[in-house]
């Protein structure tokens, strides 16, 4: 058993080790480090030792914060995320309602905090202990920087939500004392909520990880060096710039598969039992990096790591960190053949590299932005890579797109606004408000504006706010500017509002057509009327009135009518009633009836021998 190294006693050794790692990095860099893209605000140097038996971390952390705001800052507020798992009474565990095991807790304890000149600081826990505040001896003036040091120990939980261990597999995320974001004259930092994710400033990370030999590691950024100590331990140094977080993983069973895409190395760290996923994951990752890069802006880092998780550690799967994402393979080869869930997870999580890791939304306050933008983008990549109608399921005549799955979720629970803090959504409203409704709403916006205009909106938004913290209103400004349209139906009706819409044709008479809007959302649309001689008329309908009638006195009898014939309004709750014919659609009805008859005959034959 590897005894934990106490941060106090090992500080000098750690510093020496760190220095040697830096020196070694000049000779051992496997890939070029990209040039810095944004001035660092919150930077971290961490020396951590992993005890693989006790599942604990012992670490020394140096934090440098640059005050880029106009306010003098008199304190620092840190997230201590792992404390969410230390008791059943934390905000996180109360909200999740299950899963806490007293035998397998997680926690983080800061042993010492001080200025770099040795001046001691006091770190006070706030609320449930997932936040802590340290008052500074003197405020940090605008444009100035402050550096402090912390020693901490942490117990990793058995993984059930993103971070922890499963046997000898470790996914170490949200693991170190991490600063909040100063904005609007205060620290923007909330206790760790069940639905909420993360919000942080960009910075540079240098992390050295000491752990037993034989463990294969992966982490944010690039491995800069690796030192075998000859005593059964090794130290791996990772360096990352222009990132908002650092996560790492370790397992003695990891195997590596790589592929180069547009100059980027995609590294897939997989477990032996999931070797069947290699090509599928790399194909999906290639499609994602290639499409997102060409649509929004290039991926600026040298490597993207995709981490496989074991079957008993699926809680760590499907998560995004800067330059590193985790996948998931619980459904197995048979399930993966039936549905492209494996690919969807990879494509979605890689999408977060653009919509969270580079455009760093506040995931706690506006979760719809990062999850919605990511999932909408994932829908586009899945369609481009696997077909518009077959991007999720493609078995014979059974086809389903990824958009279909999101629309299914939306129309079963549509009266949810997208905008809202993560913890304000009740039950499955979070899934609808943050994921499925944004996908169908953005898809509707795309079809109304046109694909090219929508791409222009997204690209402009990305490029204008890369390495920033944009909000919903920033997106509104870009969308209305680029499209040159007032988009209140989208923002007021769908983002901030809980408006719903069902357009339907209610009556087709010989010379008139009546259409109806059900619900309080109004989106301009079209009505296509087909006459007995097969000629058609396309009417514009603004949907402002709940009902409208179009008349055609001098024309041949009306045969049928259809509102929104091109299915642009993905938010329409029911497409099936968009059209109406004057007479029974006899051929399809007979075709369906004969199939029904055959199936009943088959059932009789199977059950009773008839």
């Amino acid at each position, binding site marked *: 058993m590897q005894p934990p190294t106490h941060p106090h006693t090992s500080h000098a050794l750690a510093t020496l080790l760190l220095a040697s790692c830096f020196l070694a990095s000049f000779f051992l860099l496997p890939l070029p480090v990209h040039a810095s893209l944004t001035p660092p605000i919150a930077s971290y140097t961490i020396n951590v030792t992993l005890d693989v038996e006790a599942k604990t971390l012992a670490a020394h952390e140096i934090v440098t914060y640059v005050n880029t705001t106009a306010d003098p800052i008199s304190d620092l507020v840190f997230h201590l995320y792992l404390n969410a798992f230390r008791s059943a009474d934390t905000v996180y565990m109360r909200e999740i309602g299950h899963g806490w095991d007293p035998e397998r807790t997680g926690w983080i304890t800061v042993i010492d905090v001080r200025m770099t000149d040795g001046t001691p600081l006091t770190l006070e826990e706030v609320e449930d202990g997932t936040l802590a505040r340290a008052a500074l001896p003197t405020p940090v003036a605008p444009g100035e920087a402050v550096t402090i040091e912390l020693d901490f120990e942490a117990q990793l939980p058995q993984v059930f939500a993103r971070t922890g261990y499963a046997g000898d597999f470790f996914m170490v995320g949200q693991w170190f004392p991490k600063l909040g974001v100063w904005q609007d004259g205060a620290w923007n930092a909330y206790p760790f909520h069940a639905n909420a994710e993360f919000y942080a400033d960009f910075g540079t990370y240098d992390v050295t990880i000491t752990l037993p030999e034989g463990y294969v590691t992966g982490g944010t950024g690039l491995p800069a060096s690796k030192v075998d100590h000859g005593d059964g331990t090794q130290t791996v140094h990772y360096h990352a710039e222009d990132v908002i977080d650092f996560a790492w993983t370790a397992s003695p069973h990891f195997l590596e598969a790589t592929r180069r895409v547009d100059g980027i190395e995609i590294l897939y760290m997989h477990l032996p039992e999931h070797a069947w996923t290699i090509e599928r994951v790399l194909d999906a990752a290639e499609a994602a990096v290639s499409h997102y890069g060409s649509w929004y802006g290039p991926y600026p880092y040298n490597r993207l790591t995709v981490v496989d998780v074991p079957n008993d550690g699926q809680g760590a799967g499907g998560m995004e960190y800067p330059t590193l994402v985790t996948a998931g393979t619980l459904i197995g080869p048979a399930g993966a053949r039936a549905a492209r869930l494996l690919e969807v997870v990879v494509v979605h999580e890689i999408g977060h590299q653009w919509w969270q890791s580079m455009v760093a939304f506040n995931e706690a306050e506006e979760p719809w932005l990062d999850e919605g933008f990511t999932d909408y983008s994932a829908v586009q990549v899945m369609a481009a890579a696997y077909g518009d109608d077959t991007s999720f399921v493609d078995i014979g005549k059974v086809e389903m797109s990824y958009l*279909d799955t999101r629309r299914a979720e939306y129309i079963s629970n549509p009266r949810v606004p997208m905008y809202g803090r993560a913890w304000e959504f009740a039950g499955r409203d979070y899934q609808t408000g943050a994921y499925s409704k944004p996908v169908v709403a953005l898809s509707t916006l795309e079809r109304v504006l046109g694909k090219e205009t929508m791409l222009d909106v997204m690209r402009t938004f990305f490029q204008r706010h890369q390495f920033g913290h944009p909000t919903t209103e920033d997106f509104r400004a870009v969308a209305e500017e680029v499209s040159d349209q007032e988009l209140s139906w989208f923002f007021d009706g769908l983002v901030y509002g809980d408006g719903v819409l069902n357009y339907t044709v209610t009556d087709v008479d010989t010379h008139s057509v009546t259409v109806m809007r059900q619900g309080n959302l109004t989106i301009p649309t079209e009505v296509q009327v087909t006459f007995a001689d097969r000629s058609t008329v396309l009417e514009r309908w603004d949907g402002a009135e709940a009902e409208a009638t179009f008349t055609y006195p001098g024309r041949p009898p009306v045969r049928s009518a259809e509102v929104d014939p091109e299915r642009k309004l993905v938010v329409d709750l029911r497409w099936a009633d968009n059209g109406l014919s004057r007479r029974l659609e006899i051929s399809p009805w007979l075709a369906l009836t004969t199939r029904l008859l055959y199936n009943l005959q088959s059932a009789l034959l199977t059950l009773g021998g*008839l």
Partner: protein
Amino acid sequence: MNGWSAFRVGLSRVLRYRQVLVILFAVNLFGALALAALPAWGLAAGLGCRPAIRQAADGVDAWLVIETLASWSTDGTLRQKTMSLGSVPAAGVALLAWLSGAFLNGGVLFTYAEDGRSLSKLGSSPSDKTSPGPQAPPSVDAPEALSSNGPNARRFRWRRFLWGCWHWFGAFLLLGIAQAVASVVLFVLLVGGAIGAVAAVGGWLTWVVVPLLMLVAVLWLALTECTRIVAVIEGTRNVVRAFGGAIRFVLRHIPSVAGLYGPALLLLGLVHALYRWGLMPHLPLEWWALLLVVQQATIAVRLGARLVRLAGGVALVQV
């Protein structure tokens, strides 16, 4: 008699007693038509004038299925309506299959069995060289008028058929319930166990488990069918005794049973594959009349294949 010979005897008896096939086909068709009427009317009323029905008829359409399921989950009235439209045919199929199967199986098997007995008295016909020998048991409690003597012995006789139907109706009703319950229990145990084994050992075990499950399913099918055959040939309405006799017979004649069920099930599989992948994908929905003809031909062949299996089984047991 080996299995292949039994298969050929079965085929010749099905062709000779074509009326049996016609009766079963008619019950199947008109029963299904009655059951289809309500949902077909519901379809016409609900979606019949909506162009969306074209997407529904063109295959499994994701958005239509999604909307239907979503509406179904959120709209209580629609749920109730759909339940009533769907539950009537579902319950109807189960009830009709149970009642008509129990009634008709006795007549079908008695007709084929009497054919075998008449041969044992008249001697083998050139087309039926593997017919049973003189040891075939007599028709135990059938009235004399139904016995297999005379010039009409090898012709379909309504009276004989209906007597068989009625005579074993009660016994086969009971057997149908017992068989359904046992099938469900067997299915849950075996499939549950198989899933557990594959999860514990690994995906490769699927390649062992699936063929094994298929073998068990065929064996179970043979046992349940042989139970009815043994009951009719031995003239008993004691289904427990018949089941015991079926187990003994199947275990003692595994190669012959396999030789009969192999070709019969292969024929079924081929017909189904031809229908599902060879014909259906190429029939546009406007050709609904041709579709109907193809479907009915498929049902007739499937029904015929089952009768061949039963008639062949009768021949095997009579030996």
